[in-house]
């Protein structure tokens, strides 16, 4: 049977669906930022930005940008009513101490034990840069990953053990991909949903390491 994988925008919409009203959420640089487009304003989800913003709002209209008000990706943003500013140590205290409900991060690899690798390919000559990835990964009450299931060459990014340098150990709670959604639970990853037309058997063949399904 044939199937169609989700677009990045569809994965973002799927993630937004699981974010409860009133949650404090950090969206990582890159793909995860797209989740913001699918969060309903009336849900009062409060977005955190590592550089010292709670209540971050959308990109301002052209001509309204203020380069003292930027997000972690260094792009101009706005502040919603009720928003606040704070310094970096407070911002990372919010992460480290579990004050944030959810963070959504991109990933190079996620292991079936919930280990995350997303900061460095480890390639010789690559300049490493970590930013807030390690603090976010281990700090939020729940760390969710948003990624394509396969690399461009068709390798599964869900692995038995990460071969890239680790960001955090056993920190991932859910994995949202273009093929399926997974929950980290007892004995590894459990499939939550799969795109229409893709069977569980076909999915496990793509991944190449055992994952579980509930009856």
């Amino acid at each position, binding site marked *: 049977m044939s199937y169609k994988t989700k677009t990045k925008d569809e994965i973002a919409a799927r993630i937004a669906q699981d974010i409860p009203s009133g949650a404090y959420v950090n969206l990582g640089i890159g793909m995860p930022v797209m989740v913001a487009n699918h969060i309903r304003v009336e849900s009062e989800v409060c977005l955190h930005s590592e550089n010292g913003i709670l209540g971050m709002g959308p990109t301002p209209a052209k001509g309204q940008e203020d380069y*003292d008000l*930027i997000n972690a990706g260094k792009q101009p943003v706005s502040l919603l009513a009720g928003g606040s*500013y*704070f310094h970096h140590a407070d911002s*990372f205290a919010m*992460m*480290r101490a579990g004050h944030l409900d959810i963070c959504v991060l991109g990933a190079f690899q996620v292991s079936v034990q919930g280990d995350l690798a997303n900061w460095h390919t480890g390639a010789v000559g690559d300049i490493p840069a*970590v930013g807030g990835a390690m*603090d976010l990964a281990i700090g939020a009450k729940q760390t969710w990953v948003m990624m394509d299931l396969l690399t461009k060459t068709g390798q599964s990014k869900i692995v038995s053990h990460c071969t890239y340098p*680790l960001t955090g150990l056993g920190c991932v709670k859910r994995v949202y991909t273009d093929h399926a959604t997974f929950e980290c639970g007892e004995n590894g990853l459990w499939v939550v949903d799969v795109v229409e037309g893709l069977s569980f058997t076909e999915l496990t063949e793509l991944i190449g390491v055992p994952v579980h399904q509930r009856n």
Partner: protein
Amino acid sequence: MVGGFGTAGIPYELIEGLIQILEDRDVRDLTIINNNAGNGEHGLAALLRTQRVKKIICSYPRQADSHIFDALYKAGKLKLELVPQGNLAERIRAAGAGIGAFFTPTGYGTELAKNLDGSPKETRQINGRMHVLEYPIHADFALIKAYKADRWGNLVYRKSARNFGPIMAMAAKCTVASVFEIVDLGALDPESIITPGIFVNKVVLVREPDHQMA
């Protein structure tokens, strides 16, 4: 220590002043602490280009236009201590708060829980969770950008340009803050002062730019 994150809070005028001061001095062993490692041609990038810096402590050196850092690093002319951003902030905060060291869960089990010589940092299990011992980062000078000051050095900041300013101000022996306006004592709302003047040694008045320009 140099404040700033992205386009916000970089004390460009103070960095330019530092570069000028260094012109007739034989200083080649500065350590710079900043979240990044300079980008484009100005600010920290310009300071790095003078080759007065031997080491940089930061969380995110690689950027689209960090070519001056990239070249010096690859040529072995600049040492890098890469620190997770929250550990960087907390190590700076700890220095300013008189803390000897602290245990943090961030980085446990990763390559960044190692010392520069590759030896593992001290770890400890606390309440069932593994932590890494991290030491404070002190500095001789902090160059930061605030919004307004008074004669006592009390500071308020502007939007997300606050970023590292308040914690760096506390962590250095001498803190220099650039501001756009110096107001009379009592003109800043005491409830709104973010950095009390006790943490600030010098205030430098600079021209306020158009904040809508990157």
